[in-house]
């Protein structure tokens, strides 16, 4: 059947709407353009190989790691200027690259630091290498959020605008199957579009209606990524094939959220274990709330734990996947008082024992020590605390540190115990050093308090170092917890440790307020090294580093010989600081000299001008009158008494 339309648009619309229409079970209507017949008839019979492109060597994208001084980089975004800077500790950071209007909204590093991502109306661009050339770009109009897979192989982009595929003369990456989708997964190296997904419909008004990002969470092996459809299912996809695992989603009635274990670990034979994820479901009718650990791809349920009187759960994996802590917000029977529990799964042990740490108060923040067996919690029993509006008032809080007590002998149970509880604080956030041990407790997003406190959990008191506590002896972990220093950064909004765990940056971004925007660099001891106040400062992000290539033994060796290394570094520091100061002195001397030369010239000119004008030269300089000394006597009668002297 041939139908003629008035114009091309109508024809296109007809193809779009009616092609593939199912008339009944066995008949499908196919609609094609008449011009397609000519188009496909004209395809050449013979295959022509495309011309081979010349190989252009790319720059090393990890060149910054070869820095002689081993410095770290950071990106600073202010007004519309983006700068990549070398951290110079006490000195002004050195500019590695600088470009205005580099991004339109914000910048983001890839997880291993190889690429700097900039955002534009048309999509994102990835930059890197020594010369900061554009490496690749991904077209996704209106892109707002991105997420990399753990090893930077895949990139997920999200736009609030559904993709519109133009009909004619379109050479973009999208095909008709992408129409209306909002999430796109790309291959970072080739730039190829792998698959696009629609955004899930916004939830019911009772639920969180904002986009929770990342929508797709990546397994550490990068083989799987998954997303949750709250209330019904978890969809696990395989990478790079982008297919749904076992061709169907895992149905979990009521599921709220899930988290992948951050490392999958290896079994005894060194084979990489399956990836693991944990999810939780709330109480429905008479069913208790439940946390479940699931193996992927086998989909075996490894462990479940039932929970009662649950308001909300948060899943916190320790960075090596050894522990899973489920922070459970509970309500008492009368549903009025809420308090929190920590359910800690010891994942590496047989049968995965679960330990319950009771916390009588509401938990504001929880954080595992990276690679450690300790964690910190911030709790409050402040009546002003309502979970709905965090940060509206400054709350009285307490911070507690916990450690895993190994016990003695084989029989005793391991359990998490409090190292120390610090009360009467106002802090509400925990920032562990990426290397563990040091931690910063901060009061963020408050209107009146901007406290920073730097703690060391392995502080060696000098006396005990001298006395050499016998190993294996009874030791009180609280003795090793030490407040190193406390500081304040007026208006601080963000805090980030550098990847080496030696420096902390606190910044005040114009995105939150306009007071004293800028950043400060502190060392791990809490000493402020450098402060920069920048108008319209927006963002500072440290460049992440890839995992170390050194083996455990090599690291141990370095640790052992630290003293030898430190001597060398101290010498270098001394040298560079004296170098800087002498250059600075030189500059100052020159400025003073220039000024005095200029003054001499100008004063001479003025004298001759005065003479020419017939004025007395002396008139202007006759100011050397003797300074008048004013003596002032102040007499004050404090008390008067009359006494009759006999």
């Amino acid at each position: 059947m041939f139908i003629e339309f008035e114009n091309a648009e109508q024809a296109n619309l007809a193809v779009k709407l009616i092609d593939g229409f199912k008339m009944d079970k066995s008949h499908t209507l196919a609609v094609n353009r008449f011009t397609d017949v000519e188009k496909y008839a004209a395809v050449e019979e013979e295959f022509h190989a495309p011309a081979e492109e010349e190989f252009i060597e790319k720059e090393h994208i990890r060149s910054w790691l070869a820095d002689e001084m081993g410095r770290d980089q950071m990106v600073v975004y202010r007004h519309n200027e983006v700068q990549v800077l070398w951290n110079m500790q006490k000195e002004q950071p050195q500019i590695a690259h600088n470009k205005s209007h580099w991004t339109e909204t914000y910048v983001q590093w890839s997880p291993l630091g190889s690429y700097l991502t900039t955002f534009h109306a048309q999509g994102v661009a990835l930059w890197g290498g020594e010369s900061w050339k554009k490496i690749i770009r991904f077209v996704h109009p209106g892109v707002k959020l991105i997420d990399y897979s753990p090893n930077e192989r895949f990139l997920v982009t999200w736009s609030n605008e559904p993709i519109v595929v133009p009909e004619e003369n379109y050479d973009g990456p999208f095909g008709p199957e992408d129409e209306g989708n909002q999430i796109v997964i790309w291959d970072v190296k080739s730039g190829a579009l792998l698959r696009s997904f629609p955004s899930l419909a916004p939830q019911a008004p009772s639920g969180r209606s904002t986009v929770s990002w990342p929508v797709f969470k990546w397994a550490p092996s990068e083989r799987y990524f998954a997303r949750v459809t709250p209330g019904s299912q978890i969809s696990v996809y395989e990478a790079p094939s982008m297919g749904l695992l076992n061709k169907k989603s895992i149905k979990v009635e009521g599921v709220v959220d899930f988290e992948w274990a951050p490392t999958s670990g290896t079994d005894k034979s060194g084979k990489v274990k399956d990836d693991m994820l944990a999810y939780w479901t709330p109480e429905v009718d008479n069913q208790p709330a439940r946390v479940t650990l699931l193996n992927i791809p086998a989909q075996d349920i490894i462990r479940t734990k039932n929970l009662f009187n649950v308001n909300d759960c948060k899943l916190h994996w320790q960075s090596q996947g050894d522990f899973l802590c489920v922070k459970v917000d509970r309500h008492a029977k009368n549903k009025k008082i809420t308090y929190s529990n920590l359910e800690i799964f010891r994942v590496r042990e047989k049968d995965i024992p679960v330990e319950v740490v009771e916390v009588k108060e509401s938990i504001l923040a929880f954080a595992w020590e990276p690679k450690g067996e300790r964690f910190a919690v911030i709790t409050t029993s402040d009546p002003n605390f309502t979970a709905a509006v965090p940060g509206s008032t400054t709350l009285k809080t307490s911070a507690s540190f916990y450690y895993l007590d190994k016990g003695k002998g084989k029989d005793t149970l391991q359990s998490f115990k409090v190292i120390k509880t610090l009360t009467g604080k106002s802090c509400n956030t925990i920032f562990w050093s990426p290397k563990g041990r040091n931690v910063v407790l901060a009061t963020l997003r408050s209107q009146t308090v901007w406290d920073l406190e730097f703690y060391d959990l392995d502080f060696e008191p000098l006396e005990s170092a001298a006395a050499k506590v016998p190993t294996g002896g009874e030791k009180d972990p609280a003795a090793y917890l030490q407040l190193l220093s406390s500081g304040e950064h007026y208006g601080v909004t963000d805090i980030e440790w550098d990847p080496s765990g030696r420096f902390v940056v606190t910044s005040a971004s114009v995105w939150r307020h306009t007071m004293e925007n800028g950043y400060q660099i502190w060392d791990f001891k809490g000493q402020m090294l450098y402060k920069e106040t920048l108008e319209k400062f927006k963002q500072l992000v440290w460049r992440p580093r890839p995992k170390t290539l050194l083996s455990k033994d090599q690291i141990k060796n370095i640790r052992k010989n630290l003293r030898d290394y430190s001597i060398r570094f101290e010498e270098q520091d001394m040298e560079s600081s004296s170098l800087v100061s002498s250059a600075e002195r030189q500059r100052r001397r020159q400025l003073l000299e220039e000024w005095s030369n200029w003054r001499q010239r100008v004063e001479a000119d003025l004298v001759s001008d005065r003479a020419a004008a017939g004025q007395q030269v002396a008139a202007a300089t006759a100011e050397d009158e003797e300074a008048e000394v004013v003596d002032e006597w102040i007499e004050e009668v404090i008390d008067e008494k009359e006494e009759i002297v006999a």
Partner: protein
Amino acid sequence: MRPILLQGHERSLTQIKYNREGDLLFSVSKDHVINAWFSHNGERLGTYDGHGGAVWTVDVNSSSTLLISGSADNTAKLWDVSNGKCLKSWEFKTAVRRVQFSEGDKMVLLVTEPRMGFPATVQIFDVQNGATEAVSSEPLYIFHPEGPKITVAAWGPLNKYIVAGRENGSVALIDPQTGDIISTNMIHEATLTDLQMSTDRTYFITSSKDKSAKIIETESLEVLKTYTTDTPLNSAAIMPKVQEFVVIGGGQEAMDVTRTSSRQGKFECRFWHKILEEEVGRVRGHFGPINTIAIHPDGRSFASGGEDGYVRVHHFDDDFFTFKFQI
């Protein structure tokens, strides 16, 4: 360094000036009052009453006999310093924004602002024998300068020029006899708020709402030094002696201050090394923006006047005089 607080005004200060010896300090404010103070102890010598509007500007001659003031009541008045008598009142069409005695005290410069169809004027009056004889009501010269509105002005060396700072951030040299603009230079990005000459008038300092203060050579209008801060500036002064410093001050305007924290508003006097362009210290105390700063001619003290209605006179401590910048 404990300041002396001069509480003689009910509204924000607009300008303060020391006389040549520095023993007297004159302050003017939006509350119509002109005050004279003893600078060493903050005692009030007297007031000069007569203005019917905010007093924008004041100046005193080098022999401390005559005082001139300009006001929003569209008048400029000449006063006898010693007894507070008004010797002369000039009437204009619009407010008087800036007054200054010339070098040698023979003339005064007045700048009136443009308003309601009346153009801005720069007028020069003869006050040579102002203390003893009647002063002429007619100006020696009157100009209608072209271009952006003049906000601040001062006499150049030997009265060769009038240096005018304008609303768009530019500075112009005006010939005081013809009114011709000799040269202009774009110095700031926003309006100029103050312009104070060095002792010999060969260079001057400007402050601007663009958050910077600059030192400029009078002859060439070349920028010699720049002091960039984090807050809009209202005033800047050059320390004539003792130390090579400049003092600058300002603060966020009341309408921009979101919270009542004095720290937040940055209401501080900042001391910068004049030549090395490095900040050396701050003096806080005002709880509103600093509108005007003046430094004692012998560099022993300085005073600041704020939006908060107070003048704070600071006498420097001994270590200020022995301070040496590390070079």
